[in-house]
């Protein structure tokens, strides 16, 4: 087994935990001394990890937003003068839901790149590989860190921001790209485009490693992407609030996403009682950053549902515990429809099972007082009697898998919006209807 940083990745567990505690203590001191926001929230006299989780309150996104609203752009949150920042990023805020804004110092940014390097190296990326990052290169942090990490590792990077998907497919083939970074939804889009162009990605392109991050995905989607590209898909994730990559998938055990524990503490708490849950149990991921100096993070309630398992269940030699299956779903993405819990991934799982469906959009609507799922699906070659027959099959499969029979409507091919970033495929329109 080869590691990017063998010392950190294979450190004996007891030594790792002592290291985490020293880093946490130093991070708490830095925050209390330099950030008015944290000085208010972090009490004095935290002398152990147990005291830390007992005394420091959970941090919600609303807390960060309130701080930034009161003192824009970064609020009272920073622990350093923002003039030390060498870059600015923000989350993709929507109307009525403002973005979280962050900056990174030079050291913070090198560290962020390094956490990407840890993931990429584990997934088999080496210097002199040719890589393409299909990402918007905008305000959103996304794959920016991957781009810098690839340069840092000595790879050749093609920055495919702002290109249409046909051009991306051509670049993959013409330059025989070996490493590809993108979201699962954009990978699905490239598969569709390649088929339209008569390109067989598994045969004509040379992609070996795909880092498909940033959104929960179904196993079916992962398998579809791997088959179409003839490549291994690895999961990884980071957040704007934390800054770096906190987990990456191990090549040894499928779905085992090791936590980069020297730089992050991941508690897993019960979504309602907020008490810690044990290994193997579902809960919400709560993040503490141990390294970033400009914008620190203590006990951030992420809304990500995860299951943590001990490192010994993997066997790759890393002593870092892992999140089994990565981020399983978002706690706040779960919608109750007539008493049934539904998530976007559940809907995706059903629809990706229909090879005729190239894209879809789903929403929850209230029809004659009854909440129901409304599905719009693109199925290009379906006409005549086959159309209602396909709708009926989709509705039946929904009923069987999820327990709700949706309204299904076929729409013109190419009429639904495609996203390169963060697929949001379940739109709750109930409040709009009631308003």
């Amino acid at each position, binding site marked *: 087994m*080869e590691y990017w*940083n063998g010392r950190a990745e294979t450190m004996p567990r007891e030594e790792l935990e002592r290291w985490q505690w020293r880093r946490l203590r130093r991070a708490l001191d830095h925050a209390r001394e330099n950030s008015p926001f944290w000085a208010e929230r972090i009490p004095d006299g935290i002398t152990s990890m147990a005291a830390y989780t007992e005394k420091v309150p959970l941090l919600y996104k609303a807390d960060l937003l309130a701080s930034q609203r009161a003192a824009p752009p970064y609020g009272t949150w920073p622990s350093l003068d923002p003039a*030390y920042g060498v870059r600015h990023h923000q989350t993709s805020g929507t109307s009525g839901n403002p973005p979280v804004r962050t900056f990174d110092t030079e050291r913070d940014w*090198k560290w962020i790149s390094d956490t990407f390097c840890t993931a990429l190296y584990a997934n088999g990326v080496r210097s002199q590989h040719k890589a393409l990052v299909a990402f918007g290169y905008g305000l959103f942090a996304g794959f920016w860190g991957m781009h810098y990490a690839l340069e840092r590792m000595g790879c050749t990077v093609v920055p495919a921001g702002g290109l249409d998907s046909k051009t991306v497919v051509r670049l993959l083939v013409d330059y025989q790209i070996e490493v590809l970074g993108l979201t699962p939804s954009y990978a699905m889009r490239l598969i569709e485009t390649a088929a339209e162009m008569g390109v067989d990605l598994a045969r004509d392109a040379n992609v070996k490693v795909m880092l498909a991050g940033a959104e929960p995905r179904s196993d079916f989607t992962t398998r579809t992407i791997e088959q179409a590209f003839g490549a291994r898909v690895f999961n990884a994730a980071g957040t704007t609030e934390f800054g770096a990559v906190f987990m990456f998938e191990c090549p040894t055990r499928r779905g085992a996403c090791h936590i980069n524990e020297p730089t992050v503490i991941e508690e897993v708490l019960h979504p309602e009682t907020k008490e810690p849950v044990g290994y193997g149990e579902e809960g919400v991921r709560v993040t503490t950053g141990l390294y970033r100096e400009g914008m620190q993070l203590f006990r951030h309630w992420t809304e990500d549902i995860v299951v943590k398992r001990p490192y010994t269940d993997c066997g790759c030699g890393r002593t870092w515990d892992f999140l089994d299956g990565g981020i399983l779903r978002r706690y706040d993405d779960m919608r109750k429809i007539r008493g049934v819990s539904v998530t976007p991934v559940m809907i995706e799982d059903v629809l990706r099972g229909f090879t005729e469906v190239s894209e879809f959009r789903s929403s929850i609507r209230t029809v004659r007082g009854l909440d129901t799922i409304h599905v719009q699906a693109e199925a290009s070659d379906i006409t005549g009697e086959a159309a209602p027959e396909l709708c009926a099959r989709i509705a039946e499969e929904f009923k069987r898998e999820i327990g709700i029979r949706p309204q299904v409507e076929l729409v013109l091919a190419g009429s639904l919006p495609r996203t390169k970033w963060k697929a949001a495929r379940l739109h709750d329109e109930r409040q709009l209807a009631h308003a």
Partner: protein
Amino acid sequence: MTNDSSLTPEQRDRLLESYRTLVDLAGTCRVPAVFAALRGALAELRVALDGQGVELDDYYRPVGAGAGN
């Protein structure tokens, strides 16, 4: 096969020594082009040292960085 996973004590000491030399230089250097190179190199070395578990007390900040130089 496992790749070399740890620094030797001598390599570690020399890395730390290089870092301290560059910190000193960054404190006095007034040539913008050289200062920029020092700042980048210091940030890289700092991440490398921290990644090896080398304990350094301060929160790293080269004098003049960010505030214009």
